[in-house]
């Protein structure tokens, strides 16, 4: 038997931890081996020595010390809990603030996006420069260069912007007539003409109502040989025009002679509807109207000489007109 195993048996023997069989084995060993008996005695003495040590008494105030320590731990625990609660509250508050800030930011971004989607598209400024008050030192009215597109308008007044498209078999004759009328009634600075390669002439006039009326009266004869005359007039709605098909010179003059742009536009709309109905009628009376063979709806206010004085070309000051009208006349060879 190994020495370690014998020692464990001997230890079990002195500790009373052996089974009956082990106990018999140890008794046999110590009965026949004095060395094992001596080892057993040494173990017993060592155990006895330790067992002989006095039992030390715990401090008498141990229960109080334990209670004090428990109270201290409880207080510390409470403080720790309170600290955790305060810290937790602060943390929660911070998170709420962050959430609110994020929501505000999100709403702002959404508002910008929605505004960009639903906001009304600003009406692009047409080439109109509104001069609300003329400079004090300006004694003469502003003169528009022929190439200028801008028009001086009275305060709060919109500009009537009209285009007339004339289709004729003899454009040269019509152009000659229009040019003559322009020279007679409109300042050189207030009109220009462009002729394209396909012989289409575009006259651009920035003139007052009165002068335009005179001009229209002069070109009245040219309407007689037209195949077609169509008027386009801008409305206050962006990019929306009223189209007056088969317009007559009388209708044109009436539209231009209205007191203000709104009235002109409304009248143009009425004429557009009227002409459309007329074109559907048997006999296409509208062509008769263009040909000016039927009774005029409105007489053209052509000025009449009331004295024997010779007609004198009007000066710029004389032909000043409060309401400027932009009239574009397109003369084309056409159907």
């Amino acid at each position, binding site marked *: 038997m190994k020495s*370690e195993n014998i*020692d*464990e048996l001997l*230890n*079990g023997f002195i*500790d009373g*931890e052996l089974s009956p069989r082990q106990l018999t084995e140890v008794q046999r060993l110590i009965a026949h081996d004095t060395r094992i008996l*001596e080892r057993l*005695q*040494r*173990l017993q*003495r*060592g*155990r*006895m*020595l*330790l*067992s*002989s*040590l*006095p*039992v*030390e*008494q*715990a*401090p*008498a105030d*141990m*229960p109080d*010390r*334990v*209670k004090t*320590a*428990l109270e201290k*731990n409880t207080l510390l625990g409470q403080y720790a809990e309170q600290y955790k609660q305060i810290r937790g509250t602060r943390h929660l508050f911070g998170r709420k603030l962050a959430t609110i800030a994020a929501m505000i930011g999100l709403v702002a971004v959404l508002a910008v996006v929605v505004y960009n989607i639903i906001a009304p598209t600003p009406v692009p400024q047409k080439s109109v420069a509104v001069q609300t008050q003329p400079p004090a030192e300006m004694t003469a009215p502003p003169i528009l260069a022929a190439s200028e597109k801008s028009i001086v308008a009275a305060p709060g007044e919109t500009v009537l912007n009209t285009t007339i498209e004339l289709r004729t078999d003899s454009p040269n004759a019509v152009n000659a007539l229009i040019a003559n009328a322009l020279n007679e009634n409109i300042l050189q600075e207030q009109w220009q003409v462009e002729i394209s390669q396909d012989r289409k002439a575009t006259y651009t006039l920035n003139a007052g109502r009165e002068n335009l009326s005179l001009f229209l009266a002069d070109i009245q004869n040219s309407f007689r040989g037209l195949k077609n005359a169509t008027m386009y007039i801008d409305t206050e709605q962006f990019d929306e025009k009223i189209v007056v098909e088969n317009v007559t010179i009388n209708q044109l003059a009436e539209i231009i002679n209205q007191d203000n742009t709104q009235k002109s536009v409304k009248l143009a709309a009425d004429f557009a509807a009227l002409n459309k109905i007329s074109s559907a009628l048997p006999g296409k009376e509208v062509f008769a109207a263009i040909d000016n063979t039927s009774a005029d709806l409105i007489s053209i206010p052509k000025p009449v000489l009331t004295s024997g004085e010779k007609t004198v070309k009007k000066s710029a000051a004389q032909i000043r007109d409060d309401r400027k009208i932009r009239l574009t006349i397109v003369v084309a060879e056409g159907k």
Partner: protein
Amino acid sequence: MAGAPNINIDDDVLVQQCRQGDSAAMERLIYKYQNRIYNTILKMCANPDDAAELTQDTFVKVIENIDKFEGRSSFYTWAFRIGVNLTLNHCKRSSKVAFTSLETERKENNWRPKQILKEFLRNDASPDPAIVAQNKELCDLVQKALMKLDDTQRTVIVLRDIEGMNYAQITKVLELELGTVKSRLSRARNNLREIFEGFLR
């Protein structure tokens, strides 16, 4: 023990009362085990102040965790397990504990206790345990020898030979297998004997 209340009450009853917040039951548990736990811890760490502090910590931990006591072992072994673990951890932290070489021990002027120790360990003598208990110097010498054992061997020998636990209780306190306890105890006793013999050379 002056002022100690009647402690002949079953541990399970005291534990139950303690769980219900009965401070008197808590006191009774402390009174019942304070000396045994303190004595065991003191033999393990050899410092009265540390032993008192560790005993206090043991009871604080016992009471704070009394609801977790499941009763799979006895309250006695459960409380000792807490105390022993606290002490072993303390010993690990302060490994400075009283290490003195045998040579230093031989040079120390403690002739009288060594003589008593020699007589005690002689095979042909009839040792009187009372002599040991009455001789403080001899007790100190034995304590020094104990402190020369490593922590695990010292613990098992203290639990068996000083606290008087049986092997089964030691296995529960130290959470070891029975064979481990046996072998560790055997080695601890042999080593202690060698330490004593070293003192006497």
